[in-house]
């Protein structure tokens, strides 16, 4: 669904804090709120079980219902954010709401991959640094500046605190910084792919369906 992703180097935005561990994608966007086969209308139902009461009214104490944080673009969360279902709709819901970056202790693997593929920056920080940032952001509305070029998180308005470094997969970083399409990049290896397939048909013939006819033009892609 996400076509094409613009290059991303820095996210600078208001940070909402949701310091719970193991926030699962069923909570980010419940199955019952996925109404469109192509993923429209998800932002309005982001975190629906926590954001709305049973009668549909807003839960006033939920952070994203509080005035400054309705415009938050950075979310701070605990360990294993985005665990559970692979539904990419969770990333689409966060992005549609306006989030550009999730800073957490760790991520569910599929969620992190989905986030990268959609230009939503998933940044993992050590627990102590995360707690310190959360305390700061909870004390007063705070902007965080996440710099993917430098791989640092800093307080956007306050140079007195040293930027917190983070590590980021080099391959994912390249895709995000350049906005390059992952499929186009893989097709650079077209010759190797074709050679592998030819050899594999001989090595493991049972892995290739008999019904399959050669697919001329299938590498027509880029």
């Amino acid at each position, binding site marked *: 669904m996400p*076509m094409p992703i613009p290059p991303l180097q820095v996210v600078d935005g208001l940070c909402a804090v949701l310091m719970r561990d193991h926030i699962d994608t069923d909570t980010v966007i419940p199955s019952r709120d996925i109404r469109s086969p192509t993923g429209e209308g998800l932002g309005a139902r982001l975190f629906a*079980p926590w954001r709305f009461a049973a009668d549909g009214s807003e839960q006033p104490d939920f952070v994203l219902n509080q005035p400054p944080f309705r415009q938050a673009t950075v979310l701070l969360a605990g360990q294993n954010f985005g665990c559970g279902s692979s539904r990419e709709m969770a990333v689409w819901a966060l992005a549609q709401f306006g989030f550009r970056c999730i800073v957490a202790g760790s991520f569910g693997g599929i969620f992190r991959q989905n986030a990268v593929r959609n230009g939503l920056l998933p940044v993992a920080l050590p627990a102590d640094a995360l707690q310190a940032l959360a305390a700061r952001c909870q004390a007063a509305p705070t902007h965080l500046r996440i710099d993917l070029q430098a791989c640092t998180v800093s307080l956007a308005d306050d140079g007195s605190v040293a930027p917190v470094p983070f590590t980021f997969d*080099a391959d994912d970083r390249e895709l995000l910084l350049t906005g390059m399409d992952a499929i186009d990049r*893989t097709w650079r290896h077209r010759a190797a*792919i074709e050679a592998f397939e030819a050899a594999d048909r001989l090595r493991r013939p049972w892995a290739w369906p008999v019904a399959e006819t050669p697919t001329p033009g299938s590498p027509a892609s880029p």
Partner: protein
Amino acid sequence: MNAPAPATGARTLVDKLWQLHEIVTLGQGRSLLHIDRILLHERTGPALLAGLAAGGRTPRHPARVLGLMDHIVDTTPERSDRTMLAGGEAFITSFRERTRAAGIGLVDLDDPRQGIVHVVAPEQGLVLPGFTVVCPDSHTGTVGGIGAMAWGIGSTEGEHAVATQTLVRPRPAQLRVRFEGRLPPGVGAKDLVLRLIQRHGADGGREAAVEFAGSAVRSLGVEGRMTLCNMAVEFGAWTGIVAPDDTTLQWVAQRPLAPRGAAWDAAEAHWRGLASDDGAAFDTELVLPVDALVPQVTWGTSPAHGASIDGHVPDPAQARSAAERAAWERALAYMALQPGAPLAGTPIDAAFIGSCTNSRLSDLRSAAAVLRGRRVAPGVTARVVPGSMAVRAAAEAEGLHRVFIDAGFEWRTSGCSLCFFAGGDSFGAARRVISSTNRNFEGRQGPGVRTHLASPATVAASAVAGCLADPRPWLAA
């Protein structure tokens, strides 16, 4: 977690499968991997195929991609494209149209093979040992139970897989989990994996490739091994896998699409070479003794919130950290349980047997062994949803449907059903459900629904007792 490839010498099962599928080493610990099979379903498939078409791309090998209807289809015998879930029909019809346009095969709603993707694919031989398999679904690792290397992805990664028949992956860390000993009667694969997650946490797998091994795993049938691998994702692992052995090969040989004749002989020789070599190095190894294991049940809102059925609701004061304490308190409030209360005897409203975790024939047999000659307690709604229409037919051939129906269970057609609440079919709000599924997250089975995860035997015993119940006395009787 990236790990360097061993240069020579003893290799693990995952090392071997990685090498067999590696097209190019990309640096930074990454490889471009060949993907043998791509499976799609109607919940996440339409967006994937729409994105593919929008990018002007087509499947590189359409015959190696297959669509199945499972996620939001109704499971009533008279079902049609129109679902109890409002708007569900759009997912079904759009998936049908888009698979057809892309030249991809579809196991449609009226196909006798229809069912849950992770049940149908191995059952039909669409997936074989040693294959790399992906699907935009987190429980794709289920087929690790036959020795395939399979993992869940998102829709955008799925576009990449369909367009190129490849994916870029970092080489995973490798974890071996050895379940050692003899499984006591009434204790099965579900209990093993719930115990593992309770012991080591919902992120204890740390995105590793987990090889399940040990004498207790060897003694499991292929279906039980699939239950183990199914919940590797609930353990935070990248995937789970069990090395193919005689048990696997005997099972695979009976699949409709298994290779035959000389092709089988070649495949078998290949498969027999896949087991981890003696002395192969794992980044971590965990050993869990199983001789004294008791049936497990969850009390909270994470698969890690497990306990023995003869145990008690834990006291948050005993939590290992402040964060865990807060999570336990929150979970107990949601579940309406008191610290220190015995788990057995907690009254339930509903019982569910189904899902990619526990809906295969052996699961239905183990539940039926408890139910034979007994009745579901008054006031308890009970349902069984076979994992595939083939499982349903096989169960009917041996009369299991009569056992379930006579006990007061609904006997349904196949689909994901009440593993999650999509907005249509439900047990009703805020009910307490004992469930053979994989996730007890807040609201997973519906708003306010309190889910207790357990094995099919424990679900059956609880349905009869009307409360969380230990299946072992029922099996002995």
